[in-house]
């Protein structure tokens, strides 16, 4: 007790000046003139709209990745007091005064700046010299492409930051492993690994690659521990559980929490509503919820309903009918039934209302108490305005001749009888006696006579010709093989019908729905739906002027123009430091050749380098070459549009390899003093060329100063680079 009275309280602070200097330089290089240009730069136009939507709390779906990165960007906007009022429509548009450009760009820039000291620390933890570590940090610092990418409202620098953080904390954890397992800092770094991994995955799915790499490395290290006879089975089990907790359970939980925050923040309905199911839409404020609020839950005989096709592609649409009939003969000469058209209509309309009728009874109102419709019941669907019955028969459909035509039956007193009985099958039922619920139930209508299934043909160009008012075709699908969303419908608007007379009923159909039951989805249901949509929603294959293929990246045969000054020649490009890229490639090649050489020689029991140097070489290469490979090679299998910036995480790992290879060469291959000093001189020369190239390209990295036409032409070192030159 009271020990501090006897001895003075002493705080010893150790400050690594190297590290401090690196942080400061990183901050300067990334933050200098951050709010210039005051215009929308490249993909800011894309991420900006999400930031605005966050500010306005409007729900959106972005298929490019999970929401954590968007949230971080929005945090910047929130701190800067952005109100979300800006029209993100064009690259190069001037920002209005209410947009806090500096704070929006701050977080990515900070993340980019911190990558510099992280690189330093990683090399130190890999047990390379401070000199090598400093080299790695400086290379990252002077890499033009990384600077450009971190100075704008883009996600790559944040992703790289989390990736490097995850690698660093794993290395710290692993180095602590030997002497102090289960200590406080051991736990801290282990948990931080998991957290950083989940953040990386949360920013972009690319983070998964590094996460997998770290899991593999952890697995390998654990495999070596199994072989250690000194450890008891119990302590092995504890180690295993600790890793499982930190590297699997925590990341999953974190990932879920991102979505939880995302869904909590965004509670208003917005432009992407229609991608989601009706149930999801109803859980958002405004939009559909305003209509469906207070609808009865269970569909009963006599209910008035609108039916939405679950597929929602190419547009969402509702089962619809109108007075007009199918033409007697189509353009190509085929005949039709000439009965009333049934279509799928992409807009809300009074003609979308249908009444559920019990085939055994005549009445079209809900009895008291209501008799709910259950799975397997046979019903008739009566079109509200025309009071005709939904019908299908063995007549070829207008656009899909192999399917049956669906019509509203008109009794022409000819041989064709009405076939208007439909069996209700609830697809997502829990038991076979489930009640048909508004919004929640997904229903198939199976025609009783022909077993055809009611389907909206959801292919592009499925809209009917002039006579069908370009509405979408609805058919009875005979080959109802398997489950497809185009054959599934759900009730969106719903009310219990009260009026027996047709005139009253029309008035009733025109009036808005009333009554009250709230239907809130659980978080997990919302999460699964949103996650599924993010993964399956495919933007049309787009071609972009600056898109490139993965093979172009290694040699940097491509660039991306980010911004051009409206009048002068000032411009910003995503362009790397050529010397760094080349030396990183050379380093990777040298590493692989040397490793193969060592490996084969070791197999023949010839040891060129000491065992501990070999271990260092392997572990450093495993992280750096492995990181490069997992972040690069998968792009060859991807079919989406690719840009140069996708290569940056891989490049970061490759850059880390350069000083590793250099130090190894210096330590083990330059045997004589003369060689060593020559080697050092070469390194200095090489480093100054890196710096020179950085200076040369800094005008297109920072967008300042504006260059003249000849200067721009001089910068075009490769023919494939697209430097914008204004015509005089």
């Amino acid at each position, binding site marked *: 007790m009271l020990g501090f009275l006897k001895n003075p309280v002493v705080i010893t602070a150790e400050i690594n000046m190297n590290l401090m200097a690196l942080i400061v330089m990183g901050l300067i290089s990334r933050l200098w003139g951050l709010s210039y240009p005051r215009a929308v730069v490249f993909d800011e136009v894309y991420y900006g709209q999400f930031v605005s939507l966050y500010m306005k709390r409007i729900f959106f779906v972005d298929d490019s990745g999970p929401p954590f990165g968007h949230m971080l960007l929005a945090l910047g906007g929130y701190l800067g007091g952005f109100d979300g009022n800006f029209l993100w429509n064009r690259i190069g548009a001037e920002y209005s005064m209410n947009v806090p450009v500096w704070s929006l760009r701050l977080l990515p820039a900070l993340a980019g700046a911190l990558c510099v000291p992280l690189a330093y620390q990683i090399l130190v933890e890999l047990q390379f010299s401070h000199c090598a570590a400093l080299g790695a940090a400086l290379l990252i610092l002077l890499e033009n492409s990384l600077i450009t990418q971190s100075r704008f409202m883009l996600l790559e620098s944040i992703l790289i930051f989390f990736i490097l953080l995850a690698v660093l904390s794993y290395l710290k954890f692993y180095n602590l492993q030997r002497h102090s397992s289960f200590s406080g800092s051991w736990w801290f770094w282990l948990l931080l690994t998991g957290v950083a991994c989940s953040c990386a995955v949360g920013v972009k799915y690319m983070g998964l690659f590094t996460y997998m790499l770290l899991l593999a490395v952890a697995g390998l290290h654990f495999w070596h521990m199994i072989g250690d*006879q000194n450890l008891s089975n119990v302590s092995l089990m504890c180690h295993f559980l600790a890793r499982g907790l930190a590297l699997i359970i925590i990341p999953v939980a974190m990932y879920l929490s991102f979505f939880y925050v995302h869904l909590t923040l965004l509670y208003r309905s917005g432009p992407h509503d229609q991608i989601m199911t009706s149930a999801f839409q109803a859980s958002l404020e405004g939009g559909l919820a305003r209509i469906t609020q207070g609808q009865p839950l269970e569909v009963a005989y006599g209910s008035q309903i609108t039916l939405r096709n679950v597929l929602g592609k190419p547009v969402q649409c509702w089962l619809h009918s109108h007075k007009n009939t199918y033409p007697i003969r189509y353009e190509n000469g085929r005949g039709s039934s000439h009965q009333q058209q049934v279509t799928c209509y992409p807009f809300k309309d009074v003609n979308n209302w249908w009444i559920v009728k019990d085939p055994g009874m005549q009445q079209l109102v809900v009895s008291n108490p209501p008799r709910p419709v259950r799975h397997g019941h046979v019903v008739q669907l009566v079109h509200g305005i025309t009071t005709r019955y939904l019908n299908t028969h063995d007549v070829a459909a207008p*656009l899909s001749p192999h399917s049956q035509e669906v019509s509203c039956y008109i009794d022409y007193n000819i041989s064709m009888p009405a076939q208007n009985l439909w069996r209700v099958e609830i697809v997502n039922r829990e038991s076979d006696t489930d009640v048909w619920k508004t919004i929640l139930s997904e229903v198939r209508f199976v025609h009783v006579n022909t077993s055809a299934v009611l389907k909206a*043909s959801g292919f592009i160009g499925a809209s009917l010709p002039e006579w069908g008012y*370009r509405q979408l075709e609805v058919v009875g699908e005979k080959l109802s093989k398997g489950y*497809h969303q185009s054959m599934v419908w759900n009730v969106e608007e719903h009310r219990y019908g009260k009026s027996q007379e047709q005139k009253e009923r029309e008035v009733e159909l025109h009036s808005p729905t009333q009554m009250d039951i709230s239907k809130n989805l659980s978080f997990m249901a919302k999460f699964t739906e949103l996650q599924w949509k993010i993964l399956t929603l495919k933007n049309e294959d787009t*071609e*972009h002027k600056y898109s490139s293929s993965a093979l172009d990246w290694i040699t940097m045969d491509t660039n991306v123009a980010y911004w051009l000054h409206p009048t002068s020649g000032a411009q910003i490009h995503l362009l790397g430091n050529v010397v760094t890229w080349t030396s990183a490639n050379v380093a990777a090649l040298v590493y692989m050749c040397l490793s193969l050489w060592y490996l084969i020689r070791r197999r*023949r029991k010839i040891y060129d380098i000491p065992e501990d140097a070999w271990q260092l070489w392997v572990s450093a290469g495993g992280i750096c070459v492995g990181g490069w490979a997992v972040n690069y090679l998968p792009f060859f299998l991807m079919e989406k549009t690719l840009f140069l910036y996708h290569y940056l995480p891989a490049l970061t790992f490759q850059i880390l390899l350069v000083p590793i290879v250099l130090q190894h060469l210096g330590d083990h291959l330059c045997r004589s003093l003369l060689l060593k000093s020559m080697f050092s001189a070469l390194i200095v020369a090489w480093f100054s060329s890196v710096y020179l190239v950085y200076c040369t390209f800094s005008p297109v990295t920072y967008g300042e100063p504006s260059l003249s036409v000849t200067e721009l032409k001089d910068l075009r070192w490769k023919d494939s680079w697209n430097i914008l030159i204004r015509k005089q």
Partner: protein
Amino acid sequence: WDETHFGKMGSYYINRTFFFDVHPPLGKMLIGLAGYLSGYDGTFPFQKPGDRYEQHNYVGMRGFCAFLGSCLVPFAYLTVLELSKSLPAALLTAFILIFDTGCITLSQYILLDPILMFFLMGAVLSMVKCNSCADRPFSASWWFWLSLTGVNLAGAMGVKFVGLFVVLLVGLNTIYDLWDLLGNLSLSLVVFGKHLLARVLCLILLPLALYTAMFAVHFTVLNKSGPGDGFFSSAFQSQLIGNNLYNVSVPEHLAYGSVVTMKNLRMAGGYLHSHWHLYPEGIGARQQQVTAYLHKDLNNLWIIKKHDSDTADLSDPSSPVEFVRHRDIIRLEHKETSRNLHSHQHEAPLTRKHFQVTGYGINGTGDSNDFWRIEVVGRKAGKLIKVLRSQVRLTHVATGCILGSSGKTLPKWGWEQVEVTCTPYLKETPNSLWNFEDHINPKLPNISLDVLKPSFAEILLESHMVMIRGNSGLKPKDNEVTSKPWHWPINYQGLRFSGVNETDYRVYLLGNPVIWWLNLVSIGLYLLMAVSTAVTLKRGVQLTSELKELSRVVLRGGGQITLGWLLHYLPFFMMGRVLYFHHYFPAMLFSSMLTGITWDTLLKFCAGFLSPSITAGKVYGGGFLALVLLIMYSFYLFHPLSYGMIGPMASDPSSPMAGLRWMDSWEF
């Protein structure tokens, strides 16, 4: 079912007409050979599934496939016997393969799969045999098995590209083997070099030579023009008898007034085509469609005109011939409809960022959007343009975009022809390059095209590019319900081979569910066993010699088989093309072998656990007997699937198969 496909190709070989298929030729060549030897004359049209063979002699081809299919059983038996040294394990595997309805169905018909699986199993068997000869390298039997592996690899690759996976399997095994030898310090480097050379010779050079020879035979046999011509380049077509490019001679340089066809330079690119149909409303301007069409057609003909004047018509002999030069501005008039090739800033039907290309104008009079600048790749201004040999780019003068084919298939309104667009992205790709193929101009002297004759290597390369393109072109269409890889091991859904209605004779490709689910369970059991064995060994637990032998079988033998299964299954998850249930069968072979090994070791282990008591032997024997009986009984239940059934559908409760429809997704 697919017999229509491969049977037809067999007929093509017999008739020597050229065709195109996405698979390499060996399988179809063998089918054709079998048909030829058994007296089939190649006249049956193979038009649609269910057609009767009538008097045609088809038994030879079916018998050949069935024979290869039945070879699988002894192959699997020998492989497992070699790997596990246990007769019961081998017998169990054999029983599984004999009584699996899926394997039976698949090998009964004229398909590529039995041939593929034959070579695949052959390769695995000879690889395993070769490994067990490792103690006496360079002996006759060692050489025999090693070269047999190579031969089988070539065979597997030559039937379908799926054979690549077994090549990988053998490759990985060989690397492992060599690594072992390298670590063996009692071998000198010279001996190691010999080992290396032997493997390079037998596993790389020999298969490559055979594979190339296969294509050489393919191209020699098929020397008549046939339905596959349009997929290949003009140079290639000039080699086929009966093709309109064979031995023809055309005017060498392009001139104004000539009638030409233009072929897109992407692999399997089509001819620039137009017809009397308009783009439907809502898709760009309602003008005449311009597409790319793979087949020869009168609608592919275009007339080259100057942009400013109608060239004097060809019948007038007095007017001088004027040649088209590099960077000239021209107009292309469609010969049949007299409309000009036209583009404007409306979005293209499928590739929204490109501009729409249409046919516009009446009788050749249009507007300035009909002007195109013709440029030859890598040529200076003012040079003439050579037919067939010049690679040409057409730049739209008004918007600066380039005429190209996007390779996407238009929907029904465009007759499923290929989209043609004008791309504003000025990248150099074969999509936006064209060459002139036919060239009709009576006023010009013709030259022979023999100069174009491609070398064999070029032909080989081109045919591979076309095959790869064709394979990746087999994309599932929107709304089509396709088979997913995860369906396969659980036997989720079969494939209907023939017969749809109640009265038809129906054959349904579906694995024997008992066997398939047993396989599935075995994979799980095996993984559990392998992990626990590996951990036990790593922890340094002392084992009896018997257990050591067992663990070696589990890790080494089982590991090889599991690797084979993974290699033949996982890649399908990454494939974008249309997948079918039968793609799983190679993996299923591996999985069945694994089942044999797993249950054998499991029962041995249980027996060893009880070893002193008398029950040990009984547990082992009883377990095996139970498995075999289960398999045989399930075969008795499901045999109508493969041997055909008549009567009501199984969904009908009165059908004899009603009780067997265990999953709703089966449709027999």
